[in-house]
């Protein structure tokens, strides 16, 4: 509604157009160089990881993508580094060689609580008397079962006489009714092997209350069958009660599929974003945004390649989620700058303001916004990193790194590249106007 007014206000002539304090274009090689310098360590570790026979991928793949079992045990007694070899030996014995075992500090909230683990639950124990081998029905049960069908249903047999007919009877009379059956359990299918519930329940520490003094995480090849229970029993014989905090087990075929899906999702995200930007802006905008996105992704992956090489950090499905979120966030940032370039270009193009200057101006106009938006997003993620749960820590860290990289690339890479591209392709206006700063 007031577009013309803005034009009048600002369009006082090309030479007088202020493009802001920060001349991004002038220092373009510096800014692009900084990006490269920051990418280099990551690239180094990516190559090193690919060559490392233990990893064979740019980043250390977690069991999500490689297959295997991740266990987290809470030991009731303190476990020290010297015990790690003993624990590993138990895994080795059963053929799960090459397990990675880490001792973690007990987390806030876990070591303080005494929690009931492994004791047979009320429902399980009340179900036990309910369940009896079906081979021994009581006399009462066998009498009831063959009771003749009601006359009502025999009447309707007529039209279906050609087929054999059986009368379905309720299940209840056959399984002998024991006094303690709760009403809610009576209709449920019966459990035929009740013993298993209580015996294996003991393996997790039937003593009832278990305190966690040390958390030990173990990454191994995929544990088969009952091996996890057996191993836990063997360990608890030596180390006291062990609580299973977490177990994640994935077969190699599914892991491969998850990896393929993750990479496919990333590729599709790129394509869709380029498509959308081409549709909303122009192709060269889309390409430059894309370069910035690849920069962000590469930086993030490079950092996690480094963490993987140095701290054994593994990459799981959540990491891919973080990468995609960062891609979304980064392009979000880039779009705000592009949107301003597009708007300024519309206003100033006729005034023969060079594109480079328009880009500079647009970056400066959106600078506060770019930084503030990233800051608020970073504030929430930092809170989650420092105060949130352990499980999402790497995920949150990935988002923090990605947002930082994305903000930098939106300001200093995407638009600068666009200016360089247009400057080369459309030299005419840029040459005729003195580029005073």
């Amino acid at each position, binding site marked *: 509604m007031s577009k013309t007014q803005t034009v009048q206000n600002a369009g006082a002539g090309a030479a007088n157009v202020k493009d802001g304090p920060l001349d991004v274009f002038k220092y373009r090689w510096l800014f692009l160089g900084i990006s490269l310098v920051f990418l280099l360590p990551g690239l180094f570790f990516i190559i090193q990881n690919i060559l490392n026979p233990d990893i064979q991928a740019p980043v250390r793949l977690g069991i999500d993508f490689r297959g295997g079992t991740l266990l987290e045990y*809470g030991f009731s007694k303190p476990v020290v580094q010297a015990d790690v070899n003993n624990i590993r030996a138990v895994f080795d014995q059963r053929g799960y060689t090459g397990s990675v075992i880490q001792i973690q500090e007990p987390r806030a909230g876990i070591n303080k609580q005494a929690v009931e683990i492994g004791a047979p639950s009320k429902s399980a124990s009340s179900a036990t008397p309910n369940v009896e081998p079906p081979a021994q029905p009581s006399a009462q049960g066998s009498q009831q079962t063959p009771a003749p069908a009601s006359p009502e249903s025999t009447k309707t047999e007529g039209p279906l006489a050609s087929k054999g007919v*059986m009368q*379905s009877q309720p*299940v209840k009379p056959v399984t002998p009714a024991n006094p303690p059956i709760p009403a809610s359990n009576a209709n449920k299918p019966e459990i035929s092997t009740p013993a298993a519930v209580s015996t*294996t329940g003991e393996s997790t520490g039937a003593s009832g209350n278990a305190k966690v003094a040390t958390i030990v995480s173990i990454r191994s090849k995929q544990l088969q069958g009952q091996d996890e229970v057996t191993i836990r029993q063997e360990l608890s014989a030596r180390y006291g009660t062990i609580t299973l905090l977490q177990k994640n087990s994935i*077969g190699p075929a599914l892991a491969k599929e998850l990896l393929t899906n993750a990479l496919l*999702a990333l590729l599709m995200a790129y394509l869709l974003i380029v498509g959308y930007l081409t549709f909303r802006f122009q192709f060269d905008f889309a390409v430059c945004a894309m370069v910035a996105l690849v920069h962000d992704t590469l930086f993030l992956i490079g950092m996690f390649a480094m963490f993987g090489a140095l701290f054994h950090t593994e990459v799981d499905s959540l990491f891919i989620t973080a990468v995609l979120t960062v891609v*979304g966030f980064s392009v979000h940032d880039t779009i705000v700058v592009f949107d301003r370039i597009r708007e300024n270009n519309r206003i100033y193009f006729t005034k023969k303001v060079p594109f480079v200057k328009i880009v500079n101006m647009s970056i400066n106009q959106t600078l506060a916004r770019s930084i503030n938006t990233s800051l608020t997003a970073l504030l929430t993620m930092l809170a*989650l990193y420092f105060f949130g749960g352990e499980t999402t820590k790497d995920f949150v860290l990935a988002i923090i790194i990605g947002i930082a990289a994305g903000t930098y690339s939106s300001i200093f890479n995407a638009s600068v590249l666009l200016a360089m591209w247009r400057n080369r392709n459309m030299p005419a206006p840029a040459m005729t106007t003195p580029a005073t700063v």
Partner: protein
Amino acid sequence: MFKNFKVNLLVIVALVMAALFTVVKDHDKIHLGLDLKGGTRLTLEAEPTPDVPQVTPAVMESLQSVIERRVNSLGVGESVVQRAGQNRLIVEIPGVKDPDEAKRRLGRVGKLEFKKLNAQGQWINTGVSGKDFTKADLSTKQSGEWIVQFALNSEGAQKFGKLTSELAPTHAPLGIFFDDQQVSAPVVNEPILDGSGIIEGKFTRESAKDLVDTLNAGALPVDINVIEENTVGPLLGQSSIKQSLFAGLIGLGMVLVFMIAYYRLMGLVAGMALLVYTLLTFAVFMLVGVTFTLAGIAGFILSIGMAVDANILIFERTKEELKAGRSKWKAIEVGFDRAFPSIFDSNTTTLITCLLLWVMGTGSVKGFALTLAIGVALSMFSAITVTRTFLHMINNASGQSLSTPGALGEAV
């Protein structure tokens, strides 16, 4: 429409009240993911066997029914069995005490057997099993009663004929056992000689369907592989949820402080809009029945940080318009208008990535995508409509006309 800001205000107040009501009323109905409440998630994959060379949707349907039956027999509440892809089932069992036992029970091949009672009243094997069956179907009689039709193969027909001839004269029951567990014990009224018959009783549609699925599962046994297992002990979940919520509150607080420190009165207004946003989003999560996972909560917290982006865009734009010499009120209005394309475009790309994550992701990734997407969509409402309405309200309260310079004091 923004001229009618009183109507807007009423709508916002109504929404806030409704959201508050929802949150207060249903706060104990929040669906927590297994990573927060503890439990086991299994991904089962059906594999073809010589008997069942192809895993068809029908096979999966009967398999699902069988797995549901087995999950229920574990005696834990709120279990979920979902189909996934062509040949997979995802089973979620909360609070299971012994995941390995559960896994063992769910993963075995179904065994369908027919038994009869001996003189002592004990069930004994008859030699007729699932292998003798070809198929069972749901049907109704002319009276409308639900019945189960079944068909046997030639060998089965012979065995079954012999068995039913023996049982029919005394109207003896025929025990149908699945996984050694009695499913039904129909009385044999007449010999079934031609290889097909029906079972009738006081079936509801569900109970008849159940029997059909069981018979089919016995007739079409497939191998079941557990290809993924994820178990979280209740201990870990409880501690994570408290930490995440605490972190979320800290994050929200920091964003509020930043906005007020940097944008003063307008920042305060944006902060109020952010509180409205947080409340509305939470209420929508509950209405939609979003399952809260750790990643989902992270998505929600991130969306809090991103929700003020639209406000920042608008306020920065407003500042520029002020520098260009507009009156304060006009600058704000222009700020809203000019910032809109950026807000729309940038949120669209976030929604695109959310969509991809939703389509390609599993479990917690889906949860993250859904919460972030709902958050982004609602943030546009809060940052634009809610903020604008609040600003109008302040302006009105100051008793000056819209176009008077300084109507908002040191708002900008």
